[in-house]
């Protein structure tokens, strides 16, 4: 038995064998073959076996996301069975080269051809060829293919880190949870784990070293505990906790159809955060009143080129149609800082969080911005779209971004394209300068949405990716609370609604404070919506509001927490 600790980032208990997701060893030597017929047979067998795997991947993708999303695997199957490529490889084998070396040589020739093309789409095909060759090589070397979509028994994923695309492939039916070596509460793998509602522990440092293939693992996603090869008593204890957790979840189910109102009948909006169109399913399943934050940068990540207008249009349309009349707040591209794109080379910066990112980048590269804006506005007719801009620091930025949106709208209308008539245009308040002059912004922006993850790090000047200063990441710091109160008041004084879309909006300690301040919209991970609605039903705004002055006069974050524990 080994117990390790990490950061619990997605609640729940999981008990299942470990599935180690580690880079496979694909090294081989080039050797001389005498029985070339047998070697060709071995090569063909590898193709057949890889084909079987890919067909499973394709069918799963079709089932889960629809035929259009499995098209990529259809293309991979054709590459795998490409007669020209296999003929060239077999010709190499005939010269006495082993299958691994022949495959490597021929496929890298093809990769080079595609990489040399001056067309982004074609360049992307080079990575398809690499993916497919790796599948064949794994079969030749009898290395187990690390393919999340082929998992068909209950497992807990143990990995160094999970990329958003890996997380998106997780099959919830079998993947009971995951543990990673690195990451924190606001890392993308953590956010996605909450979105798809599986328990997760990140930042364990050593999970991949401690857990071996098929070791039984217990995961407590609330406390951040990971137990490898547990004793019978521990299994029994956690099985009981698991039942308790499920009973609690069950008890929350009735809140799916309930209105988001407090004990006095005051309504607030409880909305969900999403990163990809498919995340909207869970937001709907948890009875959200809307989507309060669509992080569109996820549409740009894990690919080799920018998503086209058409691709983005389809994504936005999917979400807007699913949400219907309920609001969908889309945040325009927020890239830079800790979020990088492999195909967009940005210069190295000393302080990326204070640098060239988000709206700064979009206003500088209008053609990039235009593609997203066109896709968004064209999709606007399918639902209740609201647009907001990230990282606004000055009024000029907001004015320029809004004017650009209107310019693109005019352009679309003159092309004869349909665009919704009334689209609210708002902004994120995540830079202290914007919070301080929120009254000026509220005269021009249709709504304000407070992004606490960044607002906290900028207010306390503490990089949220730096563990040495993570103690300064304090949502309840009096300065943060006072800024939030200022923004809410400034919005209301100008007749605007004010929302919050950071992690804080779903936090049980923060919710009574925010409700006391009169926050209109709380946008959170899908899994936090029902607990928040249940909590809200117990609160009374008029009673809470009497505490506002006392809360705002507290001196430290610890005092705030103690005050909430004592009074609410």
């Amino acid at each position, binding site marked *: 038995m080994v117990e390790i600790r990490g950061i619990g980032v997605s609640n729940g208990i999981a008990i299942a064998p470990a599935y180690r997701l580690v880079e496979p060893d694909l090294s081989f030597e080039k050797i001389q073959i005498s029985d070339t017929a047998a070697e060709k047979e071995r090569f063909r067998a590898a193709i057949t076996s890889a084909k079987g795997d890919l067909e499973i991947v394709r069918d799963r993708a079709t089932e889960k996301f629809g035929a259009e999303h499995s098209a990529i695997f259809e293309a991979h199957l054709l590459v795998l069975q490409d*007669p020209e*490529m296999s003929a060239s490889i077999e010709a190499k084998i005939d010269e006495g080269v082993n299958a691994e070396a022949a495959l490597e040589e021929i496929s890298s020739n093809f990769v080079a051809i595609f990489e040399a093309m001056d067309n982004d789409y*074609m360049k992307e095909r080079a990575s398809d060829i690499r993916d497919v060759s790796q599948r064949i090589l794994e079969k030749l070397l009898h290395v187990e293919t690390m393919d999340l979509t082929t998992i068909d028994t209950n497992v807990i994923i143990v990995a160094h880190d999970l990329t958003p695309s890996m997380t998106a492939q997780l099959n919830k039916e079998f993947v009971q949870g995951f543990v990673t070596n690195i990451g924190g509460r606001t890392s993308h793998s953590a956010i996605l784990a909450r979105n798809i509602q599986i328990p997760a522990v990140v930042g364990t440092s050593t999970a991949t070293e401690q857990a071996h293939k098929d070791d039984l693992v217990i995961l407590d996603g609330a406390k951040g505990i990971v137990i490898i090869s547990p004793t019978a008593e521990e299994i029994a204890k956690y099985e009981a906790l698991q039942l308790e957790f499920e009973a609690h979840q069950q008890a929350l189910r009735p809140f799916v159809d309930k209105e988001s109102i407090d004990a006095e009948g005051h309504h607030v909006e409880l909305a969900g955060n999403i990163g990809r169109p498919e995340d909207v399913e869970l937001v709907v399943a948890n009875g959200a009143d809307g989507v309060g934050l669509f992080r569109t940068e996820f549409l740009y990540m894990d690919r080799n080129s920018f998503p086209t207008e058409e691709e983005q249009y389809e994504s936005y349309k999917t979400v807007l149609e699913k949400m219907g009349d309920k609001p969908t707040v889309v945040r325009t591209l927020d890239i830079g800082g800790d979020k990088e794109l492999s195909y967009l080379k940005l210069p190295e910066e000393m302080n990326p969080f204070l640098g060239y990112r988000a709206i700064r980048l979009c206003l500088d590269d209008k053609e990039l911005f235009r593609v997203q804006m066109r896709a968004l506005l064209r999709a606007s007719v399918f639902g209740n779209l609201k647009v907001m801009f990230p990282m606004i620091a000055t009024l000029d930025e907001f004015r320029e971004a809004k004017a650009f949106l209107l310019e693109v709208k005019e352009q679309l209308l003159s092309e004869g394209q349909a665009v919704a008539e009334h689209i609210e245009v708002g902004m994120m308040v995540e830079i202290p300068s914007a919070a301080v002059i929120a009254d000026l912004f509220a005269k021009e922006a249709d709504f304000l949405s407070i992004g606490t993850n960044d607002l906290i790090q900028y207010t306390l000047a503490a990089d949220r990716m730096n563990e040495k200063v993570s103690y300064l990441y304090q949502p309840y710091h009096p300065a943060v609370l006072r800024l939030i109160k200022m923004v809410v008041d400034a919005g209301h004084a100008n007749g605007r609604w004010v929302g919050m879309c950071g992690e804080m909006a779903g936090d049980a300690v923060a919710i009574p404070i925010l409700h006391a301040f009169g926050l209109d919209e709380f946008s959170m991970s899908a899994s936090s919506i029902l607990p928040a609605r249940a909590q809200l039903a117990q609160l009374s705004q008029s009673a809470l509001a009497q505490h506002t002055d006392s809360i705002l006069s507290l001196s430290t974050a610890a005092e705030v927490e103690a005050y909430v524990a004592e009074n609410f």
Partner: protein
Amino acid sequence: MEKQFKITSPEGLHARPCTLLVAAVTPFSSDVKISYNDRAVNLKSIMGVMALGIPTGANITISAEGADAEAAIEKAASVISNENIGEEA
């Protein structure tokens, strides 16, 4: 035997149109080729076809030789017209 087509799909013969066409002719036993700009490649080879980089507006020729040559070309022609990939020239 052979047939000429003009590609009309906006992205040219890339991505989905290319996948559909290659998948459609692969089951036939005949040799099926596609030519563009005096270069002919095996139409059953997705990489060969994509490497041609056929843009929208291009004139292409599909030819086939073998027992089911006619059926193969008919199949290719029906996919091209049904999926709005192009039109017979």
